[in-house]
């Protein structure tokens, strides 16, 4: 049953299983295990980024396609939901049509880019996605009458998903069951479903064919696979998944703007998360996204504590000053790539821990 749910793709390493279970349990019970707004924000971000990074790995790790337009699709989903909620009010109806419209728009865009550029060399596709994504970001910030420009959009979501809504009067396990918590579980369960759907896709005959195309497109054609169709379909699927992750973010934040969805910084973060976790395995997305976001969120705090504690040691305390957190994140990244060239999951599986 469990193996079926995982599409036969079990972690195949004891330590990896343990790590994944820790992530799963922590996210599933986050509101109770780690009370507080900040930790709930972090948990929701992790859920959303697991989906986003997994959808990118579908393209990069499985199909071997380098795209720089992933945040564009993420943004299309977020803006779809955001615009619908702004335009037709905070109802579930707007939420659903906005999300569907975002996903469809992402699919159409991806199809067009794919058919236009995947016939040619892989580097051409990468360049086209870079150009299209940059143009899209400029367009979004220019069309401020629609998108709110750089300021983005603030909007209301269905009341049952907001902190103002209380399900019960009493607290349960010391936590108030309010709309924010319901919104978290919406994010959590949708993320789990999307992740399992992607796990199925990569283990399906289609997913196996993608790996063949990645390995040797020339031979894949010679045994009868139409490589362009496979690459294009992978691009579309990955774009739709990214758009759905974007919709989740739009619902969770009740705000959508260029900085939270479209920025090149997020694109780079996604790339780093895929590489740290391990390309070509969706479990890599889970570990990559979790570790990266935890580091991004708490490294600064942790370093503040360390700097205070070591204020007597002159050189060391400057090194761990909170402003240097980005430097340390860089160091962590270089170390992880150096020691785990095939990512954390690749390392764990090879080690047969």
């Amino acid at each position: 049953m469990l193996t079926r749910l995982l599409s036969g793709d079990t972690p195949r390493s004891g330590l990896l299983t343990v790590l994944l279970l820790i992530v799963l349990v922590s996210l599933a019970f986050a509101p109770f295990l780690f009370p507080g707004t900040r930790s709930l924000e972090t948990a929701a971000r992790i859920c959303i980024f697991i989906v986003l990074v997994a959808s990118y790995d579908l393209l990069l790790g499985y199909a071997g396609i380098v795209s720089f337009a992933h945040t564009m699709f993420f943004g299309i989903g977020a803006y779809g939901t955001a615009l619908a909620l702004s335009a037709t009010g905070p109802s579930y109806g707007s939420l659903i049509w906005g999300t569907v419209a975002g996903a469809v728009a992402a699919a159409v865009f991806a199809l067009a880019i794919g058919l236009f550029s995947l016939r040619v060399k892989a580097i051409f596709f990468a360049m086209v996605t870079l150009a299209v994504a940059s143009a899209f970001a400029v367009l979004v910030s220019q069309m401020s009458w629609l998108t709110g420009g750089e300021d983005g959009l603030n909007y209301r979501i269905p009341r049952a998903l907001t902190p103002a809504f209380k399900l019960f009067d009493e607290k349960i396990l010391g936590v108030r069951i309010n709309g924010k918590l319901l919104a978290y579980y919406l994010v959590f369960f949708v993320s789990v479903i999307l992740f399992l759907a992607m796990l199925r896709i990569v283990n399906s005959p289609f997913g196996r064919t993608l790996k063949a195309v990645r390995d040797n497109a020339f031979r894949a054609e010679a045994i009868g696979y139409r490589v362009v169709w496979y690459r294009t379909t992978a691009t579309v699927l990955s774009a739709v998944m990214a758009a759905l992750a974007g919709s989740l973010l739009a619902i969770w934040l009740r705000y959508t703007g260029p900085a939270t969805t479209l920025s090149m910084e997020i694109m780079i973060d996604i790339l780093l998360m895929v590489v740290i976790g391990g390309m070509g395995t969706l479990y890599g997305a889970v570990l990559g996204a979790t570790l990266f976001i935890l580091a991004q969120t708490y490294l600064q705090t942790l370093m503040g504590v360390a700097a205070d504690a070591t204020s007597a040691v002159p050189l060391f305390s400057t090194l761990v000053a909170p402003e240097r957190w980005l430097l340390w994140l860089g160091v962590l990244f270089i170390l992880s790539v150096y020691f785990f060239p095939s990512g954390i999951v690749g390392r764990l599986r090879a080690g047969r821990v």
Partner: protein
Amino acid sequence: MAKEHPILETRDLTIRFGGHVAVDGVSASFERGSLTAIVGPNGAGKTTYFNLISGQLSATSGAVLLNGEAITRLSVPERTDRGIGRAFQLTNLFPTLSVRENVRLVAQAKARKGFDLFSVAESHVELLERADHVLAEVRLIDKAEQTVAALPHGDQRKLEVALLIALGSQVLMFDEPTAGMSVDEVPVILDLIRKLKSDMDRTILLVEHKMDVIRSLADRIIVLHNGALVADGAPAEVIALPVVQEAYLGKTPDASANSGEAA
């Protein structure tokens, strides 16, 4: 049963690379169930001729016909679908995947299941069985779990042949299948090729340098030289031709070839 068309035919097939004519007006037809050896010195255009038939290269002029229908403008996978299969002179596999997965992918392509997104690949037991059956035939079953990149060269050559056997197309083209294989493996592969022809009625084109192999397998020999077809006929006849003796066998005179009557 319309028997009017040969299964495969090339008409005036030509390809030019800049000023160099690599295949020069080659016309030949191949009967169903025949095994034709294609010989010629290095650079004669044998591999290029294959590339034109299976579609990796497009002809400058001329036509390729399958069952009387022109397929000259079709893409590689379209030609594969219609029944043209091809193994490569330079091993051309899926290096990071397992040996079994390489063959399974061929079986999956043949069953047209590549676009199935919703089932688990491993649940298609018949594809795995088909893969294992072929691997047993080429004696690679013990290495089914290994990654292709880690395989010795000889085993990669066997897998190259295995992929084409798994494809089992109407027309099968082997480009020096036994080159680089250890001596005791060669007869296994040759037996398999013979079986494809006699038991399965496949049409086979075989590029091969070893004369003993050609003699034991081929019904017919085609000789290419500088891209042009210079001889075409039964093995004994062709081997005895002076042009062949000069152009191809000149360096390695073959005593038994002289017993051929035709000239």
